[in-house]
């Protein structure tokens, strides 16, 4: 669904690779649909995967707003994700050592506020300096946050983690009881393999709605921001900060805005994660999340919002799709095979789609401004004019 959004407009306006991506996506979607209808893919599991993809999409939106827009190298994605997850969990969980029992909306707000403060704290000393400062400081920050969460038991419950977390809609009218209230459904598409939709399905459906709302709003905000003059300054900073400074842009302020925006989105992913999995522990702050967020952004195409969205989906497909490898009997130890396969897929994508799956559009100007002046260029060179010398007669 979201793919169509990114590639809307008539087919003819798409470049060849875009059409290719669209084709593959459509085929993939069809495949999933067929699997769902025939019962080969459990609907509840599917929704879980969609939720997960949404979560990764949020993470890569956040990182994209920092790295893709402005070139800020943030290695503490896991920390901001964790702050979101813990912020929300500490407010809402029964087992929270400090507060607990609040409405999840309170958790959401608290998580965002904490992420905001943290982003500010790390941004103030580092964003004035050279680009790699943020990289290293954030590497350190991630470790510090993880260790604090792990060791300060009075605050976070330490290694035991937090449980007893309510669903996000608890306390809301209608929605809080929606999954239980829904009848169990039994759909028979293919005789003999009925599809059962039970409470857990409805619960997952709610979760998916939630993440789609989060991701949808984020996407719309980022899309507008990206092609605005604001986004243009960020891209100028990414490529040549001195130039932006010479042109009178307060680059420090812009970098801070981009960093905070990205961090808030990451925290949002954490909030969702908390209410999806209903359990958070210090292990959730493992740097591997940062890893995967980066992979998602690059595979999707740095600087491109639809790429980031796509990257989220790709990551989940790679990580969870490889589980089906188990179904194929192989003569060697299957344990590390999945790791191997993930590695191979990453290398293969970089080999065959080096600029990412959906790189940013070549030109990003406020839409209504270019309406008269021709349509934005698409990313492939195939559509460019053939002769460099141009037509200046």
């Amino acid at each position, binding site marked *: 669904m979201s793919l169509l959004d990114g590639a809307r407009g008539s087919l003819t306006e798409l470049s060849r690779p875009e059409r290719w991506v669209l084709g593959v996506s459509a085929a993939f979607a069809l495949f999933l649909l067929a699997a769902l209808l025939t019962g080969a893919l459990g609907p509840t*599991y599917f929704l*879980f995967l969609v939720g997960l993809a949404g979560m990764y999409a949020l993470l890569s939106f956040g990182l994209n707003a920092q790295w893709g827009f402005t070139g800020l190298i943030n290695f503490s994605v896991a920390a901001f994700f964790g702050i979101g997850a813990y912020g929300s969990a500490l407010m809402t969980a029964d087992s929270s050592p400090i507060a607990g029992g609040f409405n999840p909306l309170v958790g959401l707000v608290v998580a965002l506020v904490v992420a905001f403060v943290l982003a500010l704290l790390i941004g103030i000393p580092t964003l004035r300096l050279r680009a790699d400062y943020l990289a290293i400081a954030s590497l350190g920050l991630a470790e510090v946050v993880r260790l604090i969460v792990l060791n300060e038991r009075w605050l976070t419950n330490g290694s*035991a*983690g937090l449980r007893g977390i309510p669903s996000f809609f608890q306390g809301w009218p209608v929605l809080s009881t929606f999954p*239980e209230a829904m009848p169990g459904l039994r759909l028979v598409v293919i005789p003999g393999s009925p599809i059962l939709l039970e409470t*857990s399905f409805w619960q997952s459906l709610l979760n998916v709605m939630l993440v789609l709302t989060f991701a949808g709003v984020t996407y719309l905000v980022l899309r507008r921001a990206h092609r605005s003059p604001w986004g243009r300054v960020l891209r100028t900073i990414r490529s040549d900060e001195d130039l932006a400074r010479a042109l009178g842009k307060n680059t420090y302020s812009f970098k801070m805005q981009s960093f905070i925006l990205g961090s808030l989105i990451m925290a949002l992913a954490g909030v969702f994660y908390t209410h*999806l999995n209903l359990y958070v*522990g210090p292990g*959730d702050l*493992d740097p591997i999340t940062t890893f995967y967020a980066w992979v998602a952004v690059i595979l999707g195409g740095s600087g491109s919002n639809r790429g980031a969205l796509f990257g989220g989906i790709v990551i989940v497909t790679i990580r969870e799709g490889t589980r089906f490898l188990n179904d194929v009997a192989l003569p060697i130890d299957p344990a590390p095979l999945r790791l191997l396969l993930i590695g191979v897929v990453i290398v293969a994508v970089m080999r065959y789609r080096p600029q990412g799956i959906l790189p940013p559009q070549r030109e990003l100007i406020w839409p209504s401004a270019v309406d008269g002046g021709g349509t934005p260029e698409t990313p492939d060179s195939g559509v460019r004019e053939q002769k460099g010398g141009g037509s200046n007669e």
Partner: protein
Amino acid sequence: LSTTDDGGDGSDGSDGGDGSDGGDGGDGSDGSDGGDGTDGDDGSDGGDTGPYQIGMVDSLTGSLSAFGERNQRGVDLALQRVNEVEIDGRELDLIVEDSESENQGGIAAAQKLVNQDGVPFLIGAVGSGVSLAIYESVVQDTDVVQLSQNSTGLNLTDFPGLLRMSPSGRSQSLALSNIISDDGYDEVAITYVNNDYGQSLTDAFVNAWEGDIAYNNPHDQEQQSYSGVISEMDSSGADAWLFITYQAEFATMVNEVYSSGYEAQFYGADSVSGDNVIENTPEGSMEGMKIVVPSAPVEEENYQSFADAFESEYDQQPTSWAAYAYDCVINAALAIQAADEFTGSALRDTVRRVSGPDGEEVTSFEAASQILADGGGPDDVDYQGVSGPIDFDENGDPVGFLQVLEVQDHAYEGIDFVEG
């Protein structure tokens, strides 16, 4: 495309309790003691002749992958045992998914097993944190039976619906506390691995310990050096050092203690023992160390045959992790055979009873399966596992035996048994 309402709660009102079907509003644990009636929906696959599929979440990669590997050996052996005999003529198929030793990975793995593969029985996971995460987010409101193979964290006790094969660490901690004070020490230095396992065992130990604690600090897993920790332990002045950690970390520490020339009496919880520790530490470096491990009485016949089979297969002594995983699979197979149908609620009912104290004590799957095949009910068998007698208490914890090992001539010798 037809849509039918299955009538929801109405149909299974018979058992009087709620929470049996689909986990409405549920505290799933209720289901365990009530004899749930049949569940009309899932009946359709009762007549199949294909294998019974159950699932397992294991640490195949990530920081606990060494444990996963040990589990895997026990699992393979157990599957051989089961499938030699078969369950009512059907094979047992175990789908193993990787948790990557992480909550996120574990939850995703369990999601796939439960909601995609539709397994009614889930073995998992290794780390206590991951087991709980899976329980909370996937299993809790469903019928699925979760049996953790390795989690010894104390707080699993608070979740009666979450069974485990390895006994709670509390009994180990109590035993250790007694052993250390019996040995005449009134001061101890502790270091523990900084996770749920290490933390909760240490907490239990500290509660039980009456003497002084000269040093008590965690260490991170998978560090390249622990010389900071051991030098601090040394300067704490305590002569009894307690290690609550994993083999790799412990082996590093032992080597560092040895090459730093420190001397102390070592004690350890289960996870520090293993052939690989013996192999990778110098002679004499752990002499006299005492370790408490949950185990079946090793002289018993079932353990012996398990150990023999294991040795002939893998050319090494089995570890307790292999034994746990072995027992998980056997227990699951028996529960399946004893249950009327292959559903979570039915298994939830039988899983405790086939190995529970009622019934005839048997020590192999074959023997137990025979009783069931001869018309015996779940209460007529009492499977005695290779890791212990496997009697789950009301909290889902097994009543385990603990064995006290001592390192003598750089090998483990059992010197004592303690009732859990």
